[in-house]
C-alpha cells in the first residue's frame, strides 16, 4: 500500500509541477469555459427568471466540455519519449499511475470550477434558494465522476485513431447518469424546489461503482497489446 501511495504521489507531484510551469491545460480550460459561458448567455436570456431553472445545466455542461479539454492532454505527455512503455515494463503498479492521473485531473478541474463558479453567479445573477451546503458534495462527487471515467477513457483512446474525438464519444454516453444527477441536484438547490439528497446518493453510487471498475480494469487496458 505504501509502495502504491509513494508512486502515486511521485507521479502526481511531477504532473502538478509540469502543469505549474507550463499552465497549458488550466489556461486553455479557463478560456474555453469562459467562451462557453458567454455563448450560452447569448443562447439563453441570463436575466430571466427561468435562468435559475437552467443554470445548473449550463454550469455543468460548460465544466464537462472544459474537462474534456484537460482530459485529452492527460496522457499526451507520457507518449512522448515512450514514457508509457517504460512505465509498462517497470514493476510500478498500473493503478498508481491511474490514481495519480485521476487525482491530477481532479485538482485541475476543481480549480477551474473554483474560478468559474463565481463568474456564473455574477453573470446569471444566481442565489441558492435551497440548502446551499449540498452544492459542495454535488461538486466534489460530480467532478470525481467526470474525471475518473474521463481519465480511464482517455487512457483507452490512446491507441485509437483521432483520439481527441474518441474521448467525448466514449465518455458522454457513460456519463449521462452522473451529468443528470449533477444538473438536477444543482437545479433543485438553486430553485429551492426540494432536497438533492437522492442525487447525492446516486452520484456517490456512480463514483464507487466506476472507481472500482476503473481500478480493476486499468491494468488490462494499460497492458493491452
Amino acid at each position, binding site marked *: 500500500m505504501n509502495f502504491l501511495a509513494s508512486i502515486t504521489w511521485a507521479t502526481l507531484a511531477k504532473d502538478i509541477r509540469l502543469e505549474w510551469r507550463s499552465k497549458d491545460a488550466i489556461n486553455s480550460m479557463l478560456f474555453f469555459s469562459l467562451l462557453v459561458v458567454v455563448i450560452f448567455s447569448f443562447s439563453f436570456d441570463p436575466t430571466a427568471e427561468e435562468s435559475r431553472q437552467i443554470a445548473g445545466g449550463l454550469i455543468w455542461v460548460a465544466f464537462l466540455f472544459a474537462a474534456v479539454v484537460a482530459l485529452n492532454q492527460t496522457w499526451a505527455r507520457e507518449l512522448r519519449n515512450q514514457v508509457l512503455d517504460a512505465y509498462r515494463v517497470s514493476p510500478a503498479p498500473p493503478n498508481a499511475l491511474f490514481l495519480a492521473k485521476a487525482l491530477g485531473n481532479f485538482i485541475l478541474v476543481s480549480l477551474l470550477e473554483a474560478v468559474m463558479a463565481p463568474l456564473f453567479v455574477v453573470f446569471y445573477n444566481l442565489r441558492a434558494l435551497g440548502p446551499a451546503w449540498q452544492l459542495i458534495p454535488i461538486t466534489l462527487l460530480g467532478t470525481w465522476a467526470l474525471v475518473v*471515467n474521463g481519465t480511464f477513457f482517455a487512457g*483507452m*483512446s490512446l*491507441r*485509437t*485513431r*483521432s483520439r481527441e474525438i*474518441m474521448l467525448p*464519444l*466514449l465518455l*458522454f*454516453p*457513460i456519463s*449521462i*447518469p452522473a451529468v*443528470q*444527477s449533477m444538473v*438536477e441536484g444543482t437545479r433543485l438547490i438553486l430553485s429551492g424546489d426540494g432536497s438533492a439528497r*437522492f442525487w447525492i446518493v*446516486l452520484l456517490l*453510487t*456512480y463514483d464507487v*461503482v*466506476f472507481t472500482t*471498475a476503473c481500478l480493476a*480494469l486499468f491494468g*488490462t*487496458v494499460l497492458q*493491452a*497489446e
Partner: protein
Amino acid sequence: MKRVFPILAVLTALLLAYGFYEAMWVAPTERTMGDVQRIFYYHVPSAWTGFCLFFTNLLASIVYLIWKNPKADALAVSSAEVGVVFCTIVLVTGPIWARPVWGIWWTWDVRLTSTLVLWLIYVSYLVLRRFSDSSQTPVLAAVLAIFGALDVPLVYFSIWFFRTQHPQPVIGGGGSLDPRMLRVFLLNLFTFSCFGAMLCWARYRLEWMQREVDEAEALESLLGTESVSLRDTQVKIAAGKNPRHP
C-alpha cells in the same frame, strides 16, 4: 453442421412470414388504438431481442477478458452490431406508434430514455471498434462493454426518479391483454428471437471468416510465399473447412 445454418434460416423465414400474417390479419384490432396497435407485435419482440443480444455481448466480453478466446470476441462484435440494429428498430417503431396514440412522437419517459442511452452506449462501442487498431481492439471493446453494463442500472434509476416526479403519459395501461393477442405476441416474440439469433450467427460466421482470411494474408506476407497458400486457404474456407485443422 454445414447444412444446419441454411435449414434454420429457411425455417426462420417461414416463421417470420407466418408471424407477419398472424399479426396483420389474425390478431383482433384493438378497440381504441385501431390498427396502429399492431406495431406492438414488432416493437416489443425487437426490444426483447435487442436486449438479449446486448446481454450476449456482455457475457462474451467477460469471457474474452478472462480467457482471451478470439471466438468470444467475434461473438461480441456480431451481437453488438445486430443488437444495435434491433434497438434502432425499437426506437423507430416507438414514435410511429406514439404519435397517433399519445399525440407526441417522443417523451422522456424512463423506458424510452433508458433505451436511447443504451443505444448510445452501444453505438460508442461500435465507434471504438472501428477507430482502434486491430490488435488491442478486443480488450478495449470488452472493457467498454463492462462499463456500459454497469451504467445501465444507474441510468434507469436516475431517470426513474427524475420522471416519476412529473406527470407522464400512461404506457400500456393496466389493462390485460386479449388471449388471442397474447398468442400472436408470444409467437412474434419467439420468431424475433430466432431471427435475431440467426442474424447474429450469420454475422459471426462472416466475422470469423474475415479473420481467417486476414490471418492467412498476414501470414503469407510474412513468409513471402506464393499466393498458392492463400488461394488454398480461401478454397478451404469456401468449402466450409477450418484451414487450421484440415
